[in-house]
């Protein structure tokens, strides 16, 4: 595994209407690493993801992508990088949503090809080449002309993974990618993520799938009440003596 640090979060804080949702979160992710974030609902894991992907502004802390500072409060006040710099930084990561958020008026092909053509300015040929390669790898070649509304949830989620990968991000974030899917479709999506892990794609996965997290992750973070309560390799966490962690994981693995 490479030693290059792709993402650094230091002392990230976030409140909504006076309620602290993230308290002093710090973590780093190295190239090729798969990090899972687990924890009960309302523990702040989704907010962490939304702040890291710039969908939500954090109130304090530092966010660095591969050496480029996206936001920091080291000078005392919370400062975000310029719009132009943030645009460059956004290219470094992709995000797969719980509800897919595919563009329903675009075909599968257009969903995957338009974003890199527009924002990276690559040629149509290059965009199609990337898309066809990805669709092939994800077993969706026969769906390229379909519209998202006609696909199953599992297929839609695979298309949204393809859409994110077409941007060739350094890091791919997943926000509970299987929470909207039934067990069968869940398996289909997890298979894809597993394969990405075996190809050493750097990933940060917020999930409720404990067994999956255990098997695919290099590291797991357990969050509760806005803070990181435990962190370690799957072996460390699953054999932890932390009572709260055992109780939480017990509910899922029973």
């Amino acid at each position, binding site marked *: 595994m490479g030693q290059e640090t792709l993402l650094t979060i230091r002392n990230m804080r976030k409140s909504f209407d006076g309620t602290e949702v993230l308290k002093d979160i710090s973590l780093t992710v190295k190239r090729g690493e798969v990090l899972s974030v687990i924890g009960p609902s309302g523990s702040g894991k989704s907010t962490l993801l939304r702040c890291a*992907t*710039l*969908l939500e502004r954090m109130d304090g802390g530092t966010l660095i992508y591969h050496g480029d500072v996206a936001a920091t409060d080291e000078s005392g006040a919370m400062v975000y990088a310029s719009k132009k710099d943030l*645009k460059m930084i*956004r*290219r470094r*990561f*992709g*995000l797969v*949503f719980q*509800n897919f*958020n*595919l*563009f*329903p*008026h675009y075909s599968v092909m257009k969903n995957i090809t*338009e*974003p890199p053509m*527009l*924002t*990276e300015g690559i040629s149509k040929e290059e965009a199609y080449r990337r898309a066809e390669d990805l669709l092939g790898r994800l077993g969706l070649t026969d769906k390229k002309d379909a*519209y*998202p*509304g*006609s696909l199953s949830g599992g297929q839609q989620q695979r298309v949204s993974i393809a*859409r994110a990968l077409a*941007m060739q991000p350094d890091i791919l974030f997943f926000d509970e990618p299987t929470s909207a899917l039934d067990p069968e479709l869940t398996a289909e999506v997890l298979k894809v993520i597993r394969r990405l892990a075996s190809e050493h794609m750097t990933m940060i996965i917020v999930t409720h799938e404990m067994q999956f997290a255990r098997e695919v992750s290099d590291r797991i973070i357990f969050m509760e009440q806005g803070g990181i309560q435990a962190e370690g390799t799957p072996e460390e966490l699953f054999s932890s003596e932390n009572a709260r962690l055992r109780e939480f994981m017990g509910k899922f693995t029973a």
Partner: protein
Amino acid sequence: MLKQLGNGMAVSVGIFLLTLLFSLPLGLLVAFGRMSRNRIVSSLTKIYISIMRGTPLMLQLIVVYFAPYYVFGVSIGGYRFPAIIIAFSVNYAAYFAEIYRGGIESMPKGQYEAAEVLGYSRAQTFFRIILPQVIKTVLPSITNETITLVKDTSLSFVLAQAEMFTIAKQIAAKEASIGPLMVAGIFYYVFNFIVAFVMERFEKKLDYYR
């Protein structure tokens, strides 16, 4: 008589088309104003929409036509037809604005977020992702307004504009016959039949996705 009615028909169609041409885009601007985060802009737009929807269109037509003379003391030659187009356009823009706003606000937040993460600019997000979907959702409501507009063109008679209804009424009075009014009625019906048909085709065209 038929020739006169024919001319009136052309004027009615002209009012209809010009009003749509101006009020559809204007309505989008008004909708932006209404949704603006700037309090002054959104309040002013809200008042404008409220007045347009809360007072009779017939009264608005008269005010727009006579205001330059009564308020500013200027009389503009050949102002009758432009006044009608202005009054109809600002009135219908208010209705269209509320339809657009409803459509824009019904778009899921996830569409904006997906576009943002993929690096779309705000303009790209609106014109490529949001607007096409909004058009599909609001089309049935737009059809309704458009059909009302066809019939509302007859209100131009208050300014004695020589359109279909004004002419039919004049001939009917002169000849003491209900025939011309019947012809006018058939004209509006057929006109709207065509409008409904065309709009349905549009809706079908957008049916390629769910």
